[in-house]
């Protein structure tokens, strides 16, 4: 568990003091990957309230439409998802309810994260990019979502947190899946 110290969920096992002094530039790719794998596991096991704790209080979660440039803004362009931290919280609350009919009973998902790259920033945050293939199975139908994710990560109290997550879907339409009812 050498790298557990950067995992939000592994915080109690690590030496918080030494990590707090560590600069983001010293965070290794495998530490970031462990963080991403933990995120994938939380999503796939539907521990969504726990997953939400991976985000900073000012976090954003974006999924732009497929006909928009990667850096489009939800202020002037229509997105599929443009959650601030409040709405992300509401999304999690909703998904845990029976009245979120599309996800009740819960679908089974498998988030595969790969091709991770880490770039430090001058403001001591971290830019992380990876690719994803997420499978969703429900009612005898399996849909796959493929694309790349751009994260901005920040160290908060010794743990990595997500400041923003933007998922860029490949393809030119959300077909045949038709929905992004799960979290990518």
């Amino acid at each position, binding site marked *: 568990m050498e790298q557990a110290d950067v995992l939000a969920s592994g915080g109690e096992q690590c030496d918080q003091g030494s990590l707090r002094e560590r600069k983001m530039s010293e965070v290794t790719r495998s530490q970031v990957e462990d963080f991403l794998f933990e995120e994938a596991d939380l999503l796939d096991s539907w521990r969504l309230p726990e997953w939400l704790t991976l985000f900073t209080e000012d976090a954003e979660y974006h999924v732009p*439409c*497929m*006909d*928009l440039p990667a850096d489009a803004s939800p202020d002037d362009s229509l997105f599929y998802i443009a959650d601030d931290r409040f709405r992300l919280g*509401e999304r999690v609350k909703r998904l845990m309810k029976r009245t979120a*009919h*599309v996800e009740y009973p819960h679908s089974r998902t498998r988030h595969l994260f790969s091709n991770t790259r880490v770039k430090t920033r001058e403001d001591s945050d971290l830019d992380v990019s990876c690719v994803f293939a997420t499978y969703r199975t429900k009612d005898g139908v399996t849909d796959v979502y493929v694309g790349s994710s751009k994260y901005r990560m920040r160290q908060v109290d010794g743990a990595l947190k997500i400041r923003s997550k933007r998922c860029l879907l490949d393809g030119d339409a*959300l077909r045949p899946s038709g929905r992004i009812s799960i979290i990518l």
Partner: protein
Amino acid sequence: MNSQYPEEPAIIVDPRRNVFKVARRNFVDPEILQLEQKRVFERNWIYLGHGSELAKPGDFVTRNVAGRSILFTREASGKPVALLNTCPHRGMQVCRERKGNAKSFQCFYHGWIFGLDGKLRSQPGEDSYDPDFKSRETSHMIPVPRFEGYRDFYFVCFDAEVQPLVDYLAGARDFLDVICDQSEEGMAIVKGTHEYSVRANWKLLTENSIDGYHASTTHASYFDILMQSNGGAAFRSGAGRGYDLGNGHAVIQGQAPWGRPVADWIPAWGEEGKKEIDEIYATLVRKHGEERAFRIAKMGRNLFIYPNLIINDIMAIVVRTYYPLAPDYMNVTSWALAPKSESEWSRKYRLNNFLEFLGPGGFATPDDAEALEHCQRGFSNYKDVPYSDISKGMNKDQPSSNDELQMRAFWTQWNKQMFSPPAGSNAIKAA
């Protein structure tokens, strides 16, 4: 099955007993879909796109409309055109890009070049063709048989004999006016397109898009969130009404609990937002009078234009069209419509409003899709449970938006077009 005279009626209507039933076979039978292509999608005005998508000459979009490949562009003169996107030479799609700007279109297969008006300009090896080749009608890209616009909404029809668009719109025209009158500068499609699919029959989406009855149960989780994000604002809801607008068009209209950027303020938008929205409202009152301004700004509406266009002017404006690829599968395309010159603040809140409810990542649309797909699965029992009921509100003089008058308007027209086609035109003669 004999498509002309099905063994059981496609709809059963008995006004004396307030009975209106729709055969579930209409949603599952491939023969019905084939007949719909001929008698519904090739006979009516079908929405193509909005003029604002072509801001300047040479702008183009390519689109699949009712099974046809269409190139929608704007000539140098500024006139919009709709061309069948196929090369007169050997059939290839001339334009393969989804959108862009062009001075001309070249079919790469053999290099034929067409103007923005679709006229052949040049082709390699011209000396091997007759001198009058370019003056032949068959040498050019062919426009759709009929192409007309109303207030920047452009439609095509594959039946040259169809009535003019403004007549076809019937009572829907006034509601389209109400939506377009939100802004003196005109309305525009916002960047970003929701393109998705639903594993259900296309007519289920028609029904669902004008169905006020399902909201409180299907969208319970959305209303929970709305109460939160409105800061616990009182749940406002006026008694809405449903209207049959003629020619199969229908609408529900009423007040609703959410805010509207034009122009119905909610506390969550703060004092600054209130000032702006009050000004928008005052302008509308000056221009249109109190009664119409109230209707434009404070009331929302789900407008259905037969057979496959929805314009829902609710917490934002969605323009949605859909087309079946199979009895149990449809492609859906949705855009956000907004006043051309609204403030950055207003645009931001509008889009925020839109996403919260609408679209494949919203808190409501995925639950609609779930309901539609499970209706489709339920229809597997159609031989033993052959009919659905849409009689709600038949016992009232003025059905509310929670009744089903709207669906009855759609199905009555659909049934008429499918099973009692007029002579002539491209209607199929009964066997």
